[in-house]
């Protein structure tokens, strides 16, 4: 096989991995602050449909992406309100958000099925994009580059700044954080909103880069894969890069194996099976390294009952 084949595999891998990276990064922040949001799938698909519709009506990619981010934030605030302020069950609330998002997106998108949307074009970085094999990395869209920068910045904030310490404290021991004067509710709200905004952005990537069309249910479980990737990444933004592109790679391989006559539906099972396998391995690794989920993940913080 010639080099252009491998280059196309890498290219598909990056396109498939980027939306996962955004959603995973967002969920890492939410979970680090102690909020488990299983609504990622719903927020992603709402991001996808919003970006598609806004992009199509205004013709502006900036508007499309910003609207998707705002919609993601709005949805995540519903989850934050229900689970932080009203102390509802976080698992059920997240599931409800996913159902709601899948449903609403399909109602909003029905008039747009099959119509072409607008999409990001590649930015070619001179010289670097000519490198054989690695070239595809340097001729991608703006959102791809942004995702990598974001991963590094988010890692830095989480592990090297005061704000990061506060976020992690809320997820590990909210009572202690509260005693030190940290506003636990505020930080949890903010981190959940970051999670929502990035899930919306991940969804926007699907409908403005991966495939500039609206297809009902087009996230196809990617939100759930992102939730699993958070565990795979041990809640670290840098490891999330590895996880996201590993999964992008699986999608790329799946795409290329079609040529060998393996039924598409059998190949279509691969990302989900791979996610389950990866979860098995990351859990055993988590146990071995004694390095696990934020201790207060999913537990509402009730000041009076401290």
């Amino acid at each position, binding site marked *: 096989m010639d080099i252009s084949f491998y280059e196309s595999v890498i290219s598909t891998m990056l396109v498939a991995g980027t939306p996962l990276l955004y959603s995973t990064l967002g969920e890492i922040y939410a979970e680090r602050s102690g909020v488990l949001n*299983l609504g990622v799938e*719903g927020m992603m698909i709402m991001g996808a449909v919003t970006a598609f519709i806004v992009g199509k009506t205004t013709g502006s990619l900036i508007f499309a992406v910003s609207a998707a981010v705002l919609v993601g934030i709005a949805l995540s605030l*519903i989850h934050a*309100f*229900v*689970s932080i302020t*009203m*102390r*509802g*069950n976080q*698992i*059920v*609330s997240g*599931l*409800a*958000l*996913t*159902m*709601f*998002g*899948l*449903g*609403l*997106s*399909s*109602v909003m998108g*029905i008039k747009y099925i099959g119509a072409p949307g607008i999409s990001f074009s590649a930015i070619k970085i001179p010289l670097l994009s000519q490198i054989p094999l690695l070239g595809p990395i340097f001729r991608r869209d703006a959102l791809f580059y942004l995702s990598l920068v974001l991963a590094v910045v988010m890692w830095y904030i989480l592990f090297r700044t005061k704000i990061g310490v506060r976020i992690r404290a809320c997820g590990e021991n909210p009572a202690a954080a509260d005693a030190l004067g940290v506003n636990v509710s505020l930080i949890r709200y903010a981190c959940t909103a970051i999670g929502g905004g990035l899930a919306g952005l991940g969804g926007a990537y699907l409908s403005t880069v991966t495939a500039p069309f609206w297809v*009902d249910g087009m996230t*196809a*479980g990617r939100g*759930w*894969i992102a*939730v*699993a990737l958070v*565990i795979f990444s041990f809640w670290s933004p840098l490891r999330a890069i590895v996880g996201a592109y590993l999964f992008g790679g699986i999608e790329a391989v799946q795409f290329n194996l079609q040529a060998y006559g393996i*039924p598409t*539906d*059998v190949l*279509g*099972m691969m990302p*989900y*099976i791979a*996610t*389950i396998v990866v*979860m*098995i391995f990351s*859990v*055993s690794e988590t*146990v071995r390294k004694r390095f696990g989920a934020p201790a207060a993940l999913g537990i509402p913080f*009730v000041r*009076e*009952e401290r």
Partner: protein
Amino acid sequence: MRIAFVKKEKVSFKRMIAVRAAAILLALISVGIIFWFYGADPIEVYKEIFLGAFGTKIGISETIVKLIPLLLCGVGLALVFRGQIWNIGAEGQLVLGAIAATGVGLWAPIPSYLVIPAMFLSGFLAGAAWAFIPAVLRAKMNVNEIITTLLMNYIAIRLLYYLVYGPWRAREEWGNMTWSGFAQTAILPDYATLQTIPGTRIHYITLAIAIASLILVYLLMNRTSFGYELKVVGDNPMAARFAGINISRVILISMMISGGLAGIAGVGEIAGIQHRLRPGFSVGYGYTAIIIAWLGGLNPIAVLISTLFFSGILVGGSYIQISFRMPVGVINMFNGIILLFLLATEVFLNYSIRMRR
């Protein structure tokens, strides 16, 4: 001034009804606003949903038809949820039950009077087996079952597609010509289909199984030592460990019952309604059942009432899909909003709210 939540010890039945009803009313108003944006008169839409589901003889019988799979899935989920085991995979388990039933119904080399029992048995086993995978991962390796059960739904749907587009696809015949037809299996022989109440699509055998399972599961939960162990695992896993309860066993058994019941729901859909396997035969019963189970919780009557409510939404929802040109997803949207409001108002059940200076 701050708002303070004061924990209540006991919740009165009246208060529960009032809070739940208020939540559902608020949810209906919110969905109404979305309908209005969509360009449909919310009052008209709701009228259509209600009359569609409960206003005619056909509507009522169809509501009971939808109640069958929802009740089977919901009862199983209520069981696992009591143990804080989150089986989100009823949809996939239902699909597996349907696949197994179709296979047995079409090809099992057994006497025809045994075919229906064999379909139910194989459906139960297939659903239970599908639930066994995430259950054993959770029980033995502590892998999060929420994500694995959910991902297995996607795998199950892919398996269904693979079968109906591939090896199980029926050949059409005309004279001595054959060609591959629609993406569906051949139609089941008569002895592999369930009888219905005349003039309706109510396959009463599955309905009877569903009601029996409701009773049996609640006896299991409230009258057996297994039920007691399940509750301890749900309320306080640490205490369960100290008390010597075999947590893995509790997880495995409850998950397999839950998966098996969802599998039976799949059998009913194939043998009672569809009479062949085809994509899209389940309209998300397994997901709607999550709400039913969570709402009904410990009370079998509450499970029955909430199942009736959501079956009505499914039937009424199918009418508005046609007359107001709405996608199937509208039902998901409905369910999601109702669930969010129920959750947000849950606090009024367990706490009383006081203003404090």
